[in-house]
């Protein structure tokens, strides 16, 4: 009882990367709390996913298998998930901050009247003393996230309610296989009884999910453009440069919001977290919202016309000047010297 539980999302016939990453984080938290790690699979034809969940050190797998549970719709999934949580009574619940996770988690938190923190960039176990009542709480989940547009970092706790729920974006946590033959207990959830009482209000008429075009999480070199790039054309220039040096192109939230680059390229708290060996930030000021997703890069080069830009604080090399002039020079000298 009172274990750590991870909601495993099924995406394009596999367990979503973010769910796997959360299992790895969940395993560590469970070890620290001396409890078990549980995983929840909700959908159809789930047997094939068991192995990919087991090997990350999952002790208990809840399987809710039913044709009517795929594709995802809110109310049936919420009803099943709620039922599992009421039986399992976990102390911590982790959910990927995806379109599905961000639809499901708040609904569930409202039903269970528990706290939920969105888009955490770190999860740590620690104690907490209520400033007013002086009550001490041991081993709470510190849910750490940038807030206020990324200008501050807040540590949130839920001292009095259980479970403590958090959503986390893809790429924030690292995946680590525990053992290929890790033993999990499988619990088949009696779905039919639950679904009989559910309101299937939402019907999916059409669904068109595109395979991901860009996946930056594995990139070794990333050239990332910010609002300072100014246009789609500017990004075309960056892509050209990236191709020259063998890099992938990322974008800051401001650049994506402005329509300069696709959402899949977004790096930061509300995009992906990356750890390349070289990160070249071009025209990016460096709000925490962004740096949270790239500060673990091995080497950071910043190109900005403002020498005081916050990004320069974490850059190994800061080049001050106009990227329109610097990027072509970098391309030229690369071509000259790489031969």
């Amino acid at each position, binding site marked *: 009882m009172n274990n750590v539980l991870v909601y495993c999302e099924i995406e394009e016939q596999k367990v979503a990367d973010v769910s796997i990453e959360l299992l790895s984080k969940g395993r560590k938290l469970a070890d620290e709390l001396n409890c078990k790690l549980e995983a929840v699979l909700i959908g159809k034809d789930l047997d094939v996913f068991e192995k990919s969940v087991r090997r990350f050190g999952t002790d208990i797998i809840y399987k809710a298998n039913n044709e009517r549970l795929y594709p995802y*719709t*809110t109310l049936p999934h919420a009803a099943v998930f709620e039922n599992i949580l009421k039986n399992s009574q976990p102390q911590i619940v982790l959910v990927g901050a995806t*379109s599905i996770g*961000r*639809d499901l988690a*708040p*609904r569930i938190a409202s039903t269970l*009247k*528990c*706290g*939920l923190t*969105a*888009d955490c960039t770190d999860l740590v176990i620690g104690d907490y003393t*209520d400033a007013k009542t002086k009550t001490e709480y041991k081993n709470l989940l510190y*849910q750490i996230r940038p*807030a*206020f*547009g*990324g*200008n*501050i970092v*807040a*540590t*949130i*706790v839920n001292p*009095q309610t259980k479970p403590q729920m958090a959503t986390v974006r893809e790429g924030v946590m690292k995946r680590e296989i525990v053992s290929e033959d890790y033993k999990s207990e499988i619990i088949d959830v009696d779905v039919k009884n639950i679904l009989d009482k559910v309101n299937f*209000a*939402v*019907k*999916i*008429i059409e*669904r*068109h*999910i595109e*395979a*991901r075009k860009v996946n930056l999480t594995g990139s070794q*070199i990333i050239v990332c453009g910010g609002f300072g790039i100014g246009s789609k054309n500017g990004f075309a220039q960056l892509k050209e440069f990236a191709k020259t040096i*063998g890099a992938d192109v990322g974008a800051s939230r401001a650049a994506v919001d402005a329509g300069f680059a696709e959402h899949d390229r977004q790096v930061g708290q*509300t995009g992906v977290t990356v750890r390349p060996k*070289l990160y070249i930030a071009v025209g990016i000021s460096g*709000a*925490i919202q962004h740096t949270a997703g790239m500060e673990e890069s091995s*080497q950071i*080069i*910043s190109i900005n016309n403002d020498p005081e830009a*916050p990004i*320069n*604080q974490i850059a190994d*090399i*800061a*080049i*001050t*000047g106009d990227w329109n*002039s610097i990027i072509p*020079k*970098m391309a030229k*000298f*690369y071509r000259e*010297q*790489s031969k």
Partner: protein
Amino acid sequence: MAFKIIVLAKQVPDTRNVGNDAMKADGTVNRSALPAIFNPDDLNALEQALQIKEKNPGSEIIILTMGPPRAADIIRESLYRNADKGYLITDRRFAGADTLATSYVISKAIEKIADYDIILSGRQAIDGDTAQVGPQTAEKLNIPQITYAEEITAIEKGKITVKRRLERGVEEVECTLPVLLTVHGSAKACRPKNAKLFMKYKHAKTHTELQTLDDDYLGQEIKNKAFLNIEEISLDDLDCDLEKIGLLGSPTKVKTIQNVVHTAKDSMKLEDNDADIKNLIGELINNHTLG
């Protein structure tokens, strides 16, 4: 077919354009340095409501916001765009609410003010980026939710069809009414203020604002015209469980807030000149960072 629509909107500090004076020396947020604006996604939600109203004469749009007295601006901004009526939920006792306590109060207010067919809100507010209040309000009202809505493609008696913009695609769904929709930022942008409506509603005021108004004649004028009265809802107007509101009703507690100052690395400073950049690229090639 006429529909009753409630739009949930929030006044937020404009965190997108944060200047150097946004943080105080003690590490707290200097709210006065940030302009208060209509949360961007909520404007997208309002536009969807206005489109339903245009296509379905007789439909009514009620705008509902929760915040300090100055959040009445959100209601005026909506009236200028052809919303019909607004309510401001305001009470110091609601302060410190997290998303759970906020959605509780909003759902109580909705239950009090009106029947509805559709509730629309922005997907998320830019000050917290949680995207939680919409789904939590739907849960409290025990109605279905459609998040990430981009376009209402059809609406008829008892049924709505919505296109959703997901991370990696689109989905078209059909749902029974009533329903709560959270509208994605990629939805059609909201129309500008209408000049005639601006003239009509520019003196619309809440009771609190009227009390501080220094113009007795105007004050009387406003009182005489019902459409210029923005209704305020306080805790006393609602049937709330005191343990579920404000700080007490919020399971999430902020343990610490840090204004993160990156410990400045000893970074190498380069200029935009051939020698510096040539050396840099040479070094990156030599140490095999670049292939």
